[in-house]
């Protein structure tokens, strides 16, 4: 189950990065919501905490401002790092 969840999350971050963090659609946020719920059920506390922060930044409507973009980039790198660590330990 954990393995399946991590793969799903990996696909999600892949799609965000391939199509660009600048263009985030409402569906992306909905998908993230689902991932947060699922992560909660599995008990991935740290990862979920970072995903929530990511959702918070993605929901901001001022993506064009430099500081939000920087915040988003840093948070994305952090989420990916957590994800890759979890994946490598499965």
């Amino acid at each position, binding site marked *: 189950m954990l393995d399946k969840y991590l793969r799903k999350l990996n696909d999600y971050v*892949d799609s965000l990065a391939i*199509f660009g963090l600048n263009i985030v659609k409402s569906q992306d946020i909905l998908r993230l919501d689902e991932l947060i719920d699922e992560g909660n059920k599995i008990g991935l506390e740290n990862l979920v905490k970072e995903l929530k922060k990511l959702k918070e930044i993605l929901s901001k409507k001022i993506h064009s401002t430099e500081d939000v973009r920087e915040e988003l980039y840093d948070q994305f790198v952090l989420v990916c790092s957590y994800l890759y660590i979890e994946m490598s*330990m499965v």
Partner: protein
Amino acid sequence: MDCKDYKLDDIKSLLNLCNDDFIINFANKGLLKRANKEIDKGVEVKIEVLGDEEIEIVFDEDTKCLVKPQINDIGCTCKAKGVCKHIVTSILILRDELSKEVVNQDREGSIQEDVIHNTENLWIKNVKIDEIVDKLKPNNIRDILFRLNYNMDYGVEKNNYKVQVRIYDNIIITAPFIGDIDNMLCSLRCDGLCHHKVEALLICLINENIYDKQDVINTLVRKFKNDKHIRDDKCLVDVNKLTRKMLEVGLARLPKTILNEIEYEVHRCTRLNYPRLEKMLKSLITTINRYYSKDASFSNSNYIRQLIKIALVTKAIDNAVDYKVLTDAIGVKKTTYVPISDLCLFGIGALGWTSNSNYQGITYYFYDDDNASLYSYNDVMPTETTKSNSIKRMYNKTQIWSLEAPMKDLCRKKIKIKKPRINEQNRLSSSNDTEGFILDKTEMSKLKLEKLLYRDFSQLIEHMKDSFTFTIRKKDELESLVIVEVDKYDEPHFDEINQQLRVDMYDENKEVLTMLIQYNEHTDYLIKAIERTYKNGGLGYRLLGKVFKYEDSYYISPITFYYENDQMENVTIELR
């Protein structure tokens, strides 16, 4: 030489120091030869002692040398710049005078008192470590730290006049007791305070118990971390901006000019000495090129992982407090080899390989059974200058460490290596100083093979999980090398869809580990050979291989098979 009214102790100390080697070191061979010729011709000079620390040698009206206790203070009035023939001649003449004086004193029955300096007041003892360490560049500091941490055997010799330190590659630093730091001589004839002299001074400070070795190491680490050249903010900020841009825009919308931007950062990283970032960015260019050329081997996940790793390494260089993390993030361009004590090693196998960067070679593996340590030796050649069968030729012809046996034999023998040199990854060098002696044949069945041999595959997987955790640390190439004892092999099966050969192997507890070989132009022969060997009587009871992770499972790629009669077969070379 009339010196009755003056004490010339310091000048005598200098003259005692001035043997031919020392003179060649601060002048050169040619000048020494010319000076000796002058003396043989019977050059006439007038020697005048001007004071306790000054002797004037008058050659003629225009040419006078003033000899002082410190070598760098000796001057001449002739037109030549730096050390001239007259300075060397003066030293030789005074040296002869001094020896005559000693002989006369001996004849008169007087006891010759050597000029023994009070070693408690040596200038070396007053050297401020922070000041000398400031002269070192980050790379020098890394090298010195490596040698200090490896307990390299520095040859330190001391007499009444000088201390000599042999650092590495036979570089000798001479520190006369008289004078100061400027009087030190480096056998490479470096001007000023070179990094060799600093290293020798640090060794002296440790040897004389003026500083604790750990204090010296701490000072070097502190200096390394605070060096302004280590963290070039602008370059790191720009690389970070570049990765951010790529993630923000998304690969699908990135213009091809992004390749030029990455290339520019590659050059900057080369110039600023960030080898790891340089390599990672180059690899990113290859990946993006695959994307643009619609190459099937391109994977989204791999591309994003590369970007994230670049972002993390950039941050690590910028923020790392730990020396190991910082140096690992920076990486090394040229590996440093240090001399270590003699080794007794067992050759356990060899791997033939061809890289994507146009190199091919053989990695030989050696094992120290007493200390449970693995070592490797690499023989590499560019593919452009070699023929297809060059791996076998290298294997059959290459000889190292003054041994007459080719590597083909060496990789299955027990050998003693005198004066070996290794780098941080336990890779042995082919240094000319190193001497090897073949002792016996490697008898695998008699070796303990601690930390290397696994009879239980589940234990192996459990152990390997730690090695394959996502980390920005660069993996040690020997970390994934293991020997597994196989109870039974399944028949090799070629997966046509994924183009890979799979051989399931079982341990005594029926746990399975799969040998996996991905098909490509370089492994074509190996796949056929493994299938053939299986049919002709089976694969070895033990296998040396590299464990790797593929789609969340662990696999092993073969290097060497071991058979019951202590025979071994290096499959990537001998089955070619």
